[in-house]
């Protein structure tokens, strides 16, 4: 069942169009992540759903009912703010009970509901502490508890993990996912961090310049990006402008880097003359020797970058006709030195045409 629906929503601030004719449907119990660079309109989208901004045009509905005209306090939607926005003059318990008071929930039940939600976020028995005495991670959980205690239809998360260090962020991602599953709340999460988006989301929505570039499950947007922006934004990618030299039923032969390198793709070309060839660095094979074959090249290791869990190489493939050639990015577990020659293979089935 659809929970939140945005229908041709546009938001303008003076001359600036922050959100440009955006439509999507978010289903019940879904973890929906909006990802994009800063200024892409993702936070504005969230503020439109929360009610802090009103759309210039278009409509927003919750469970089929239009909510665009409702004040924030009249929507069954709660938000976790980027800076947590905990009330500094209230204790943790008072912070969490604030929403219960404002919504006239039976005061008899406040204490038990506060205790339950603190259990849920894994911080029991800190009702009497004040926010300033808590660590960033704890404040984050309290902000989450304060939103969840009202059992909202929709939970909005505005870059909630961006102020945490990496270890804590990874742990909180797991926690967020668990809490979302346990409560069954529909979550809309905004982030500029592509790893966070891919690991949390049921559906990823990639935004840029106020428009949606692609919506889909994480694997789909990662491995089947619809355009160059999505390919480049979600992790490392190799994207090259290419011209179609030859196309038959199951392979397309491409000229890359002013046609100095020939690349074969398993994908069908679109109608336009120039294409964008795309493949992920983890699909590039590196070996000391390998037989000639499709997409097998002699290359030189231009640089290596050790990043902990993998090694990132830049590989130069010389062109057939001039010296320019092609530089591509590859991930490998094996050790190569800069300047070393290497045989490179790009599986044609992994080369997409965008």
């Amino acid at each position, binding site marked *: 069942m659809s929970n939140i629906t945005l229908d041709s929503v546009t938001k303008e601030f003076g001359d600036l169009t922050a959100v440009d004719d955006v439509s999507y449907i978010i289903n019940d119990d879904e973890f929906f992540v909006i990802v994009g660079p800063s200024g892409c309109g993702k936070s504005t989208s969230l503020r439109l759903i929360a009610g802090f901004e009103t759309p210039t045009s278009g409509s927003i509905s919750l469970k089929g009912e239009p909510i665009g005209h409702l004040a924030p306090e009249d929507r069954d939607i709660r938000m976790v703010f980027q800076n947590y926005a905990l009330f500094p*003059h209230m204790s943790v318990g008072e912070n969490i009970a604030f929403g219960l008071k*404002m919504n006239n929930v039976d005061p008899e039940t406040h204490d038990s509901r506060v205790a339950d939600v603190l259990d849920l976020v894994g911080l029991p028995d800190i009702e009497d502490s004040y926010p300033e005495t808590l660590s960033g991670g704890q404040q984050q959980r309290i902000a989450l508890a304060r939103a969840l205690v009202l059992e909202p239809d929709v939970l909005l998360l505005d870059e909630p993990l961006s102020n945490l260090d990496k270890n804590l962020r990874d742990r909180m991602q797991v926690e967020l996912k668990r809490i979302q599953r346990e409560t069954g709340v529909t979550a809309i999460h905004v982030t500029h961090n592509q790893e966070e988006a891919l690991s949390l989301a049921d559906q990823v929505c990639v935004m840029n310049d106020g428009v949606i570039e692609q919506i889909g499950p994480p694997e789909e947007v990662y491995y089947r990006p619809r355009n160059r922006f999505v390919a480049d934004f979600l992790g490392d990618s190799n994207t090259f402008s290419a011209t179609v030299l030859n196309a038959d039923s199951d392979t397309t032969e491409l000229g890359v880097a002013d046609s100095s390198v020939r690349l074969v793709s398993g994908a069908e070309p679109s109608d336009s003359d120039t294409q964008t060839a795309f493949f992920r660095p983890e699909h590039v094979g590196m070996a000391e020797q390998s037989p000639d074959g499709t997409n097998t090249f002699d290359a030189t290791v231009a640089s290596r970058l050790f990043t902990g869990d993998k090694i990132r190489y830049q590989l130069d493939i010389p062109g057939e006709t001039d010296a320019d050639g092609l530089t591509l990015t590859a991930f490998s577990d094996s050790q190569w030195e800069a300047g070393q020659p290497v045989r490179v293979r790009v599986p044609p089935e992994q080369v997409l045409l965008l």
Partner: protein
Amino acid sequence: MSSRSYAGIDRLRSVVGGDTSSLVLLLPLVVAFTALFIVPVGQLFSRAFLVDGTISLANFREIFSTGLYIDVIVRTVRISALTTAITMVSGYLLAYYIVFRSSNKRLLLLLVFVTMMVDLVIRIFGWVVAFSSGSILEILTSPFVEDFSILFSETAIVIGLVQFTLPFMIFVTVGVLSNIDDSLVEAARDLGATRAQAFLRLTLPLSMNAIIVGGSLVFALSMSSFVSPQLLGGGRNRMIANTIFSLIGNSGEWGIAAALGFTLLVTTASILVIFIAIVTALLGSDRP
């Protein structure tokens, strides 16, 4: 080595916090404060308690048994309380507008500041002109006001004092309100609070310091005001400062003047203690 001096420094350190070298920063203030305030005022107050070379409360007995002095004290408190109430409410509202609603905060703050650039005496004389018979103010208000005789009344003093103290309240409150994160009020709204509830439970308690500091400043400035009652109040509406001035200037009554000055200080301080306690009790906790 003298351990006593170390103990003294330790005590100072616990007051100031951290490195003793930071105490150097306090030095100019301490010197100036001692030389310019404590010594002369202390000397003045000592006269209040000395009659013919012996310690005595005769000066205070004189003050509190003379209807004229009691009237002056009561009038001073009444005018100051009214001024403080008007200035606090209007100053807070203006500051709220400047911080949260206006599109040109700097321009408005500059305009508030401009009112302070004219000397107080000139500003008060402005009111004297405005309140005189035949003034533009009288002509403009003639359809609504039958008897335009504000000059030399308590109302005139309060108007002068509100104009004088308003910028102080506005600047203090703008400073405090600017430090309240917008997202706190948004969070309150998001959790179901109406605009009014968010103001009462978030903005107001979080700006308690503006009310305490601004209110105290306005009240203290009003209690000790001299120019406004002198020029706008006339002979019948003297406040404490004017009475002290004429006691010394006209009759050389240093002892009574000093005792009256001491009474002013104690009265102001006592009322402020009560004021701060009430504000803290009302706004200091979220519990009803």
